């Protein structure tokens, strides 16, 4: 799975959880500030990422996440070699 495919999966999760349009999501989108997530949404998103990609976001990961790109960076780093840049 390359970064584009990973992005598509993540965007699908964000659309489903936050009821935003896919077109409004970019790598620089702030998940809270731009996409309107609250702490409950973040917990649900983390659960969906775990189900879809078999990666459990840690507390440290969650503290680092501000943007969609941050999530992709974390997933790319931790899912290697499953994810190619």
């Amino acid at each position, binding site marked *: 799975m390359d970064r584009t495919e990973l992005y598509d999966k993540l965007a699908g999760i964000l659309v*489903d959880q936050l*009821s935003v349009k896919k077109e409004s999501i970019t790598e620089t989108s702030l998940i809270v500030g731009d996409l309107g997530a*609250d*702490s*409950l949404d973040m*917990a*649900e998103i983390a*659960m969906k990422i775990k189900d879809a990609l078999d990666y459990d976001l840690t507390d440290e990961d969650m503290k680092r996440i501000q943007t969609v790109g941050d999530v992709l960076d974390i997933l790319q780093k931790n899912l290697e070699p499953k994810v190619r840049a």
Partner: protein
Amino acid sequence: MAMATSNKTFVLEHKIYLNETNAVGGVAYFSNYIKWQGMAREEYFIVTVPVWQEIVKEVSYGKVNMITVEEHSHFIQHAYFGDTIVISLQTANIRTFSFDMIFFMTNKTTNQLLYEGLQRLAFDDFKGRFVPIPPAMLESVKDYKADLSVLKFTKLKQYFNSQGF
């Protein structure tokens, strides 16, 4: 009177007393509708969740905490001292850590819709970490899931549409 109906809408009746009205015209004061949401919610758990007492124990032991994270109200018509209101409750938007409760309140005599409301309930471990809905409660929550396509909302439909339902 509380009963679990066969069509899976939970119903509770409540008579409005003077202390629930405001100083003007004996009209039910707005905050009571939230209180009535709470009454209906608690009665729903008591009646429909067989192990509700075990869940309350879990809460008292600090193992699981039920949090109201969001609440919406739309006040449609007045209710007055002496009126009996019928509070109906169904669930919606059932997710891993949360679900919604939808409330309609009608005048028992006239069947007039007085109020529609919603609250979102979530569960955490008292340490700020969300935990899944307790399994015993989840069973009942699924049983009372609303068919949003047939419910007649006035204002809340806009909310549900905005949420993608």
